[in-house]
């Protein structure tokens, strides 16, 4: 009886219901689309794409009063979004892309992140190799491929800043994206230790746990090759926490990580790592 009633109802619904699209339509639509705009083949921007999506969803959800909430360093949420857009804009300017002016921070940020994503998608390897300004206290230019990872890093950290300002839980990047961001920072670390006047022979074993984590051997100077040099200390902490430490969002205290061996060497590494962020 119940089955019969349900079948009758389905019949009634057929009056107002249309069959699903034919199966061949899917491939025709995809072929027509890629014929007018080729798909991107690389994954260089995948971490940045993901952070742009997360950041965009977050700022869409903010109320007017949340836009003026103070963030960790006193800037309002709106000012922080403008700051992020400014650093994205520097990269675009170096690529020769002109962005139409916008008055609202959210619209400006979205226009610029759209343009950056589209430029990378259209440009291929040539564009990824072009040197562009990096964000940060020390002026530096690196290939766009690396700059994109830094854009992902900064977009994540400012998303965290805004989440903290409006009392939302923090969200770490996807494990593979976090690993890429950490790899980007760790590659800069030996040189930064030298620049801080703390370079020395030897390495530190950095055990980053949790999603995106891995074990890294970090040289304490860019001048000495890591292979064959003694391991002076071991530092263990969660991978996402180390990422936030690199951004200067986690204070370097004696208890910030589990340390064994040469504590001074370990703390030097952590102290310099905490300067790798871009404000």
């Amino acid at each position, binding site marked *: 009886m119940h089955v019969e009633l349900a079948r009758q109802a389905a019949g009634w619904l057929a009056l107002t219901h249309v069959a699903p699209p034919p199966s061949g339509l899917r491939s025709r639509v995809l072929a027509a689309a890629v014929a007018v705009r080729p*798909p991107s083949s690389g994954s260089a921007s995948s971490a940045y794409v993901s952070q742009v999506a997360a950041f965009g969803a977050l700022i869409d959800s903010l109320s007017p009063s949340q836009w003026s909430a103070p963030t960790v360093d006193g800037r309002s949420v709106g000012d922080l979004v403008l700051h992020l857009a400014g650093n994205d804009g520097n990269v675009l300017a170096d690529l020769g892309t002109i962005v139409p002016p916008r008055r609202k921070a959210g619209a400006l940020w979205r226009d610029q992140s759209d343009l950056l994503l589209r430029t990378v998608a259209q440009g291929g390897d040539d564009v990824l190799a072009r040197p562009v300004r990096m964000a940060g206290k020390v002026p530096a230019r690196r290939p766009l491929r690396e700059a994109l990872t830094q854009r992902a890093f900064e977009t994540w950290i400012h998303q965290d800043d805004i989440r903290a300002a409006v009392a939302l839980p923090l969200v770490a990047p996807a494990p593979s994206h976090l690993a890429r961001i950490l790899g980007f920072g760790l590659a800069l670390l030996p040189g930064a230790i030298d620049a801080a006047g703390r370079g020395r022979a030897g390495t530190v074993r950095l055990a980053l746990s949790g999603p995106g984590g891995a074990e890294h051997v970090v040289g304490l100077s860019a001048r000495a090759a890591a292979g064959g040099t003694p391991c002076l200390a071991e530092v263990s902490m969660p991978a996402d926490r180390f990422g936030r430490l690199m951004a200067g969002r986690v204070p370097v205290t004696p208890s910030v990580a589990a340390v064994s061996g040469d504590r001074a060497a370990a703390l030097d590494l952590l102290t310099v790592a905490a300067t790798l962020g871009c404000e």
Partner: protein
Amino acid sequence: MSDVRSHADDVRLRAMLVAADEDALTEAYDRHAPSAYALAARITGDPCWAEDAVQEAFVELWRHPERFDPHTGSLRTWLCMLARRRAIDLLRRQSAQRVHLTRLAGQAPVEPTVEDDVVGAAQAKAVRECVRDLPVLYRDAIALAYYYGLSYRQVAVELGVPEGTAKSRLRSGLRLLAERMSAAGYSAYEVVDAP
């Protein structure tokens, strides 16, 4: 699916589309083509034109994903709007062509009779009203399955419930709908399988 989660999905797909990620287009198609197609087919009354309208809507999304603003509406609404616009364009073109052909042939175009339209429209209206008045749990499941053409599995994803729950809501909703249509004096209509 909650509004927050579906908004986050729309923003994610938009960013991937701007980055020319083909997987995002495939995902958008699988999620929203049934709705866009159902709408275009209802407007044009012709499966071939509905296909053209859907194709043009998705090509437009792929070419200019930046024009979709997730802050003002969902990706499904945006795609349905594009498909609707294309469907109406196609109708207009066809309509102009038909007038032209009619003049050439020297006779009036064949249209469905007014009576056919009225009877069909009255029944369809009664069904829609009956669906609208169902308890919300059943109504949503039925609307997604029958008006937007989603499968049981897709209904479950959209509603954020297990597949078994989606299935039982559909069954209960259909039973209630049949009872109410019957109570309103409508006899059983031709039976078709659920999607």
